[in-house]
């Protein structure tokens, strides 16, 4: 599933020659340099690399939470800024970032509420989303009563509230324990299959990237750039479930990404191997 340059209408995200330089007091830091990446509708793409490789910066540029110093980014054929103003994407961060004074249902309703969706439609949609993430019984609970994994499910439901065709996720499972993490990965696979949204997923976990993604974008630091892009996923006709974790193609994917990560920096780098 190698999406190449296509007409804008059939592209979810198109990143062309993008660089981001952060000025510092004395010199400057090149967080990203000459990044080209095209993501097709419905495609799941992970960004992986060691700290400082610019993977989060790239996601923030796509979300228009930051602006590139060079190059262009288009989201569904629009500028990144216009896509943000049009609410074209949903976003989730490493911290669930729920509002502690709002109930779970009201937290999920937040984007609908600030975008003036009427009350009945809101209520209906929140019920759907609660069911999708399996938290119907917790609608009236508050964030402090939920575990970290449950809070992250709420954050994902909130990101999906407006049925975006693009989901941006910045290490959403980074703070979760390994067991919860694998369960959340399986849930995310199910949810994205249901919604058909394209996903840009930042992670520092190789197995997580290989398990979830159609393509794994391997990045390296100083300056942040794309080393290579690895196609992943089960063999034709296979499904992305627990059997995929045991399959040879999964191990092969992990090896490929690992070698790129280690080779890309010229020497072994501190990649978390989980």
């Amino acid at each position: 599933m190698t999406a190449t340059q296509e007409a804008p209408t059939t592209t979810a995200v198109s990143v062309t020659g993008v660089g981001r330089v952060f000025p510092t007091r004395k010199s400057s830091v090149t967080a990203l340099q000459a990044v080209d990446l095209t993501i097709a509708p419905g495609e799941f793409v992970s960004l992986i690399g060691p700290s400082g490789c610019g993977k989060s910066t790239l996601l923030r540029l796509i979300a228009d939470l930051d602006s590139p110093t060079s190059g262009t980014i288009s989201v569904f054929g629009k500028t990144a800024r216009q896509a943000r103003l049009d609410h074209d994407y949903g976003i989730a961060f490493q911290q669930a970032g729920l509002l502690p004074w709002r109930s779970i249902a009201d937290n999920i309703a937040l984007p609908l509420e600030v975008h003036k969706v009427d009350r009945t439609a809101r209520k209906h949609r929140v019920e759907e989303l609660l069911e999708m993430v399996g938290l119907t019984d917790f609608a009236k609970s508050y964030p402090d009563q939920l575990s970290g994994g449950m809070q992250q499910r709420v954050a994902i439901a909130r990101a999906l509230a407006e049925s975006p065709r693009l989901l941006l996720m910045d290490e959403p499972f980074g703070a979760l324990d390994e067991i919860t993490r694998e369960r959340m990965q399986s849930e995310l696979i199910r949810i994205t299959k249901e919604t058909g949204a394209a996903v840009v997923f930042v992670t520092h976990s190789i197995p997580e990237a290989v398990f979830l993604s159609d393509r794994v974008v391997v990045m390296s630091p100083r300056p942040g750039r794309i080393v290579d892009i690895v196609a992943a996923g089960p063999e034709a006709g296979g499904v992305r479930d627990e059997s995929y974790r045991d399959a040879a193609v999964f191990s092969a994917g992990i090896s490929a990404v690992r070698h790129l990560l280690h080779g890309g920096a010229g020497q072994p780098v501190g990649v978390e191997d989980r």
Partner: protein
Amino acid sequence: MNRGPLPLWATIASPIALGIVLVALWQLWASAADVPDYFLPSPSHIWTQFHENFSLVLKATLHTGWNALRGLLIGTLVGVVGALLGNALRPIRQMAAPIVLAASVIPIAALGPVLNEMFNANFNTSRVIIAAIAVTVPVYINTLRGLAQVKPVHRELMRAYSTKAVTTARTVTLPTAVPYLFTGIRIGSPMAVISALVAEFFGGPLTGLANQVTANASSGRYAAAWAGVLGSIVLGLVFYVFGYALERWFNRHQAA
């Protein structure tokens, strides 16, 4: 050292037990050593006076309490409006900083006579103002701090939603500050009572608790004076518990 929290019954019972023991010792000492009333009346004597003069003590307590309550409300209002302005406009915050610092160290004893001269000494205006000043400072400082506590992740989220500034303020900034506001009110509540009470010593209508204590003490009715002290303790506790309950309520989901 810390062996974990005490069970609830012990948390409640232990200070009560200590209080009973202390009052009992006081009573024993007062009756055994025949301590004169002007030095320290016995608890039973104070209680009798409190009981017999209950309507007078209550009236004085309500009078002082009403001053303290008005001061609390005005001080909270001024503190919140000031914090909103200070949060919105950095120059205001910086200009106000030394004034706030000055207000926080003003002795009530210095303000009382001055304000009594400024406003008609027959009214409670100066007492309410003194209580309000005492409340304004902690409310202003805590609310201002609360407004700055918006988490980066919440700010990013609202930017991703491309909401207007007013929507961001209503959905994130103000609710974030509310628990801090009530911390300020909790700190300010007993200070309002103390200030309203102390301000009575500097003139004005002779109907407050401090007036009653002074009048009774100077006419040799020591136990009755102590009954007034008891009334002011109760008043201070009522305000404290009120502020504490509000703070707890508005902080109930802050563990996340």
